[in-house]
């Protein structure tokens, strides 16, 4: 049984009580501690900046050529905060409630409450940094409603909210770089965590330009390395997003929680061919005015304009009269899959559904539509060569976000003391499904406001202890393992490229561990993945050397870790005999095809670890719901 070390007292006082009671490191002593931050996305950059401001010696690492390129940059829609500026009844409690409910009652109440509390401070912080949030003519901040929320609590900066928030955090971090408190290592990939006497004491990295493998000791290690959606090959994530840092930490002993909780986003541009490299998200806001439909008849190849009203099936409006096109992400996604599987898919590959703006154009006029969605329409046009003003968009669900991640306690510490996980890399706040505009909030809460306090609690008792030197046996041995692993990819000398394996893995996972999962399918996936991994170890071809920039070599390590993670995902999905949020087991659905939870048996966090064998071992953290009563979600 895992202890999340949740503070006592009423939930709204947990965080305050905790802050008041944890140990502090005095200002003069902070510079005696070295903190390693891996990843400079929202979570990592905000943590590095804040820790640097506090006076810690921070070393930050990213494999990008600039910290500003982290995947967080791509977030479009917005960030939630319980500011209640529109005076429409929002509150910390309501945001807390919505998040727990949206997560389908599989998240930790206390963490979510803290997140809702901190959301307010995030907006203040970012505004002070100069993040150009949208404003009203009166000069005050504007809000919009997002993802079907019943209040307007989403702050946004055009369609580039993630970019602006990340630039704010990145700039704050660069300011600390200038002041010498943060030492930034770009183009440096962390390839392992070093654990000594059960504690995280540093990391081993590879310089992506020179190939040099090096050790970096620290008193604490913070992982903020993002999510693992790319295990599916095709996803909305950036091409380089990967699980390596998290997976390596996991193999060093940190438990991995809820790997099967993955989120599929309903409105992405469908793949156009075999060589599609990634999928592009079209903001969810499009569903506010667009209507989703497919032809009534399977295999109807007429142009959309030639299909009359009577031959169209507006299936969301038909099935969910109350919410219509605005049902939550998981529901909308699965409904699209149902239609495409019935042969009603549209487009050259019959792999999409229509998102039609004809009615909106008629009702609102082209100008209004352009004002609201112009950017998105242009982007769609650039990618597909079709103009949504003239012909309906084609959309299909795609892998988008991973709620699973390293298990962390209330302090965001993993099961390895001294090793923390922040942002999408941890599992903490979203349960089985994340609400729109909540990931940015969580990443920044973790980085700006949570970890800077909680890390002190771990460090304070270590005052006076030096760093483990990088020539210590623990570092030397880890370096050796990293070097061996890297060289092995080069020496296999097989016939298939890394991308080939990645693509194959993606197909297996999407088929059996994607939107819908069955016990049989998952068993099949596990065996497919095992044999793919064998092939990989035998038949991989990576050319070049390890002493220069070698992108295939980088990718080989990432795909290797994905292959191992994919198996764990299937194991987790197979064990969770219920449907909840993004995890939909066909065997567990209501009569009208909705997810059916099993609170009696599965109200826990599944955290996986390893002993010596081939099979992972399950650890549980029971979940209790004292403030939000679990109920069956319904959108009819």
């Amino acid at each position, binding site marked *: 049984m895992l202890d999340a070390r949740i503070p006592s007292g009423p939930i709204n006082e947990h965080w305050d009580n905790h802050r008041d009671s944890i140990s502090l490191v005095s200002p003069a002593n902070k510079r005696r501690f070295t903190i390693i931050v891996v990843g400079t996305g929202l979570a990592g950059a905000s943590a590095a*900046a804040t820790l640097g401001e506090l006076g810690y010696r921070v070393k930050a690492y990213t494999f990008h050529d600039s910290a*500003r390129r982290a995947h967080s940059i791509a977030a479009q829609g917005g960030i939630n905060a319980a500011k209640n500026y529109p005076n429409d009844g929002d509150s910390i409690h309501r945001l807390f409630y919505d998040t727990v409910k949206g997560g389908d009652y599989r998240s930790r109440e206390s963490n979510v409450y803290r997140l809702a509390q901190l959301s307010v401070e995030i907006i203040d912080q970012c*505004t002070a940094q100069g993040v150009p949030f949208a404003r*009203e003519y009166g000069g005050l901040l504007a809000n919009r409603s997002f993802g079907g929320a019943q209040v307007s609590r989403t702050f946004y900066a055009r369609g580039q909210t993630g970019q602006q928030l990340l630039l704010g955090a990145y700039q704050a971090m660069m300011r600390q770089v200038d002041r010498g408190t943060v030492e930034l290592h770009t183009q440096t990939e962390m390839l392992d965590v070093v654990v000594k006497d059960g504690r995280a004491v540093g990391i081993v990295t590879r310089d992506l330009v020179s190939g040099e493998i090096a050790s970096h000791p620290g008193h604490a290690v913070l992982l903020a390395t993002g999510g693992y959606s790319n295990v599916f090959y095709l996803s909305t994530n950036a091409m380089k997003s990967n699980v390596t840092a998290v997976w390596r930490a996991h193999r060093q002993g940190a438990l991995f929680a809820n790997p099967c909780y993955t989120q599929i986003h309903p409105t992405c541009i469908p793949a156009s061919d075999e060589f599609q490299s990634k999928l592009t998200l079209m903001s969810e806001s499009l569903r506010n005015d667009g209507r989703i439909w497919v032809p009534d008849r399977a295999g109807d190849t007429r142009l959309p304009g030639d299909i009359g009203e009577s031959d169209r099936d507006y299936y969301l409006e038909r099935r969910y009269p109350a919410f219509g096109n605005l049902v939550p992400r998981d529901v909308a996604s699965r409904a699209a899959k149902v239609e495409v599987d019935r042969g009603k898919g549209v487009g050259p590959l019959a792999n999409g559904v229509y998102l039609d703006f004809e009615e909106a154009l008629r009702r609102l006029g082209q100008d209004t539509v352009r004002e609201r969605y112009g950017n998105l329409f242009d982007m769609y046009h650039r990618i597909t060569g079709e103009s949504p003003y003239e012909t309906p968009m084609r959309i299909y669900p795609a892998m988008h976000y991973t709620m699973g991640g390293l298990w962390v306690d209330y302090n965001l510490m993993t099961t390895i003391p001294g090793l923390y996980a922040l942002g999408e890399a941890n599992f903490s706040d979203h349960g089985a499904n994340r609400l729109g505009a909540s990931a940015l909030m969580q990443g920044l809460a973790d980085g700006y406001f949570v970890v800077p306090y909680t890390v002190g609690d771990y460090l304070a008792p270590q005052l006076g202890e030096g760093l483990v030197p990088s020539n210590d046996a623990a570092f030397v041995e880890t370096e050796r393992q990293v070097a061996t692993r890297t060289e092995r990819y080069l020496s296999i000398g097989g016939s298939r490229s890394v991308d080939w394996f990645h693509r194959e893995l993606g197909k297996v996972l999407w088929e059996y561990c994607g939107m819908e999962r069955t016990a049989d399918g998952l068993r099949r996936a596990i065996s497919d993945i095992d044999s793919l991994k064998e092939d990989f170890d035998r038949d991989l071809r990576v050319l*070049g050397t390890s002493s220069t920039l070698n992108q295939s070599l980088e990718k080989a390590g990432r795909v290797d870790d994905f292959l191992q993670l994919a198996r764990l995902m299937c194991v987790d999905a197979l064990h969770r005999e219920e449907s909840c949020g993004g995890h939909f087991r066909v065997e567990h659905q209501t009569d009208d095809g909705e997810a059916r939870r099993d609170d009696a048996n599965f109200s826990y966090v599944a955290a996986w670890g390893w002993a010596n064998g081939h099979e992972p071992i399950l650890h549980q953290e029971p979940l209790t719901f004292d403030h939000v009563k679990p109920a069956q979600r319904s959108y009819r």
Partner: protein
Amino acid sequence: MHLTLRVWRQDGPGVEGRFETYEAAGIHQDMSFLEMLDLVNERLVTAGHEPIAFDHDCREGICGSCGLMIDGRAHGPQGSTATCQLHMREFSDGDTIVIEPWRATSFPIVRDLVVDRGAFDRIIEAGGYIGAPTGSAPEANLTPVPKETSDAAMDAAACIGCGACVAACPNGAGQLFTAAKVAHLNLLPQGQPERWMRVERMVETMEEYFGSCSNHGECEPACPKGISLDNIALMNRDYLLSKIRNRKLGGQR
């Protein structure tokens, strides 16, 4: 489509490079430019040759990783479009496409088409921020910002740091990038206290790395985010003012 590619190959920083010619057959017009390169690479690997190194990540035109000189134009023939958003339908069957890396002394080539744009980070480090330590921020709505100002700041802040402006500039100048950040922060009320220090430090750091601005205007059409030249004028003005203003009177405007 069948295309002929002439691609710059260079094994590492500071060594001789050369153009190599590759035939790219069976290219679909719905592919993105980078997917076309992926395919060429996949075939190179199968044939036992090292793939072409190029930088990319988001493939959504927002991270600023990608950037190629395509037929003599930064980010290729389509306006307001980053390389990753360029699609093959912009080309025709039988075309020969020449691909070169960004070239600037302070963007050294790391390998093939990959350059190091760390100089941009040095500029930001020098002053491209508002010093607001975490926890010290006042309530967000305490400072209203006129919508026009906030929109203008957002226009400037849209820069993705891709370096196309430097690449396209006949002088290898970094003005558009630097000015975009100066404008974003100097326009906002929050940015006023550090305004003069910011522009002074950023401009002087920029000059350590990049050429000067002759107002050719070549950066503006190359920029995937449409950052305006007006920002450069603003930066030039603020830099001049930074040298004349009595900063002790900052509060008096």
